[in-house]
């Protein structure tokens, strides 16, 4: 399979960082997932070949890291933190609000393939809680109104 030039450049750069090839595995998986949409069988095989690993060795690693997923998900990945600092400031009602608004639950996708919702562990936004990340972008000090605004904004983006 082929990756974009931008990603190939990144992979080439990564390879220069370590004394052993395998060290590039986790960043390669994450960056490939960003481009392809998930760590598909094709991605697993391609990366395994490049790093002189078996597909199984790569799969063993993929299953450990919670950001990696092997199936495609909705275009926008909404990850709501409900850990202690966020919970104390109303994260559960934020999660409920999004759930009702989109009509989906934890690790589910909207039928139009637009949104994927996930309840996640601490994302390091404790002092700006409650918070969520949508495709790596932090949205903090959330209120239901602010959530609506963000989701509307994403729909307009399309």
């Amino acid at each position, binding site marked *: 399979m082929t990756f974009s030039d931008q990603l190939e450049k990144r992979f080439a750069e990564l390879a220069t960082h370590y004394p052993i090839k395998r060290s590039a595995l986790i960043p390669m998986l994450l960056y490939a997932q960003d481009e392809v949409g998930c760590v598909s069988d094709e991605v697993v095989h391609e990366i395994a070949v490049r790093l002189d690993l078996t597909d199984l060795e790569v799969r063993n690693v993929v299953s450990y890291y919670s950001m990696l997923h092997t199936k495609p998900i909705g275009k926008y990945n909404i990850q709501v933190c409900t850990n202690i600092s966020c919970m104390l400031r109303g994260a559960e009602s934020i999660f409920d609000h999004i759930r009702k608004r989109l009509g989906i639950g934890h690790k589910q996708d909207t039928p139009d393939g637009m949104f994927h919702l996930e309840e996640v562990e601490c994302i390091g936004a404790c*002092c700006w809680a409650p918070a969520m990340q949508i495709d790596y972008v932090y949205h903090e000090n959330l209120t239901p109104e602010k959530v609506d605004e963000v989701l509307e904004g994403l729909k307009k983006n399309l």
Partner: protein
Amino acid sequence: MKITNYQLPITNYKFAMAALTSHPDEVKVVSRRFGQGATDIDRYLALDGYKATQKALAMGSDAVISEVKASNLRGRGGAGFPAGMKWSFVPKQSPKPKYVLCNGDESEPGTCKDRLIFEHDPHSVIEGVIIAGIAVGSHQGYIYLRGEYRYLIEIMEKAVADAYARGFLGKNIFGSGYDFECAVQTGAGAYEVGEESALMESLEGKRGIPRVRPPFPAVVGLYGGPTVINNAETLANVPHIILGGGEWYAGLGPPKNGGTRLFCLSGSVNKPGVYELPMGYNLRKMIDEVAGGIWNGRKLKAVQPGGSSVPVLTADEVDIAMDFDSVGKAGSMLGSGAVVIIDDSTCMVKYALRVMRFYQHESCGWCIPCREGTDWLKKTLVRFHSGGGVRRDIDNIQYLAENMLGRTFCPLGDAAAMPIISLVKKFRKEFEDHLEGKPCLYEDHSKIAQLPVLTAYDHRAADPWTHAH
């Protein structure tokens, strides 16, 4: 294609920047360049940037280590181990290359301080890594950030590239004849990787599973070479110690607890935020004054003074100095500097359940007391919180947690057990209030997750409309 999403952090950059807070009692050392544009290398140089590295190169290994020892700098990741001493354990001569690792896998619930350092002062971390390298005779550093911190990885990568372009990294740095290479590495979502040996496994491209010690990383670490691994905040303090002197830094805090600390005040308070306060600052004052007191006119119920993995303190126990030794004496730990403040509208059984759900999710599964213990505890607490508990469960929860202590390869087992033991001991009445099918006093009952035997195993995925706790 997802590639368009990948562009988002750039176009929506304002969303990524975390808001800064301040208080007159702050003593700014690590945070002195916050909000001053120090991500730009020229601006960083104008703010005394890279002077410490040049000074350290002139001082040499032994002098750097003794300066850091004199500073009483202790590990900011949680364990509080003296940094200078850690460095001195690395053998001078080694047939294998030595490594310096910066642990930026910040994942302890309640902790968000390293994020600000990477965002506002990335070069100070690079300097810390280089100076640690000079101290132990290493020529390669890695800065490991959690995968969720993508915008910070971009900031750090740019900072490293800028430093290379100026000759501050690479061959013959600052014309000193000393070579030092440095790279930024991303994780992909795993709390466990914040544990030192698991981080090394991850950096070697494997599952983040802890290693058996001894041998300790200072002797056999990354790629089998002697390795120094420090938290990002610890390393970001080092350039300031080299420039200001160990004695000055030690003097900022009480004996054996040098310097300042980035305290992440979060939870039920009016002004949550990251504040840099001297070690030994009074916890009550921190809650009432710095964090602006408890929100919504509520009262303080409990505090976790060092992240989700430390024993809770009750409202009567907060009149203590926030340094490693004083918090230890009070029966808790200073941990990662995350002060989670809990008001009196919170159900402590639910709190215990949320903490345990986290550790159950993050346990790597390598050793049995942690893997099974966290799972049993989570299931018991789900049942207990929904009103299905029996009196024996209360002692059983404590018994299970106590049997995890000290019986695991890494501290995750202890981290899961300690808060639970303290919650049962200090809030036993709240556990008793949930007995005999009595409804939780605090929660909307339609939202309490039911007995695990009555719902599918992964209750979060089972029914989108029933809130899962």
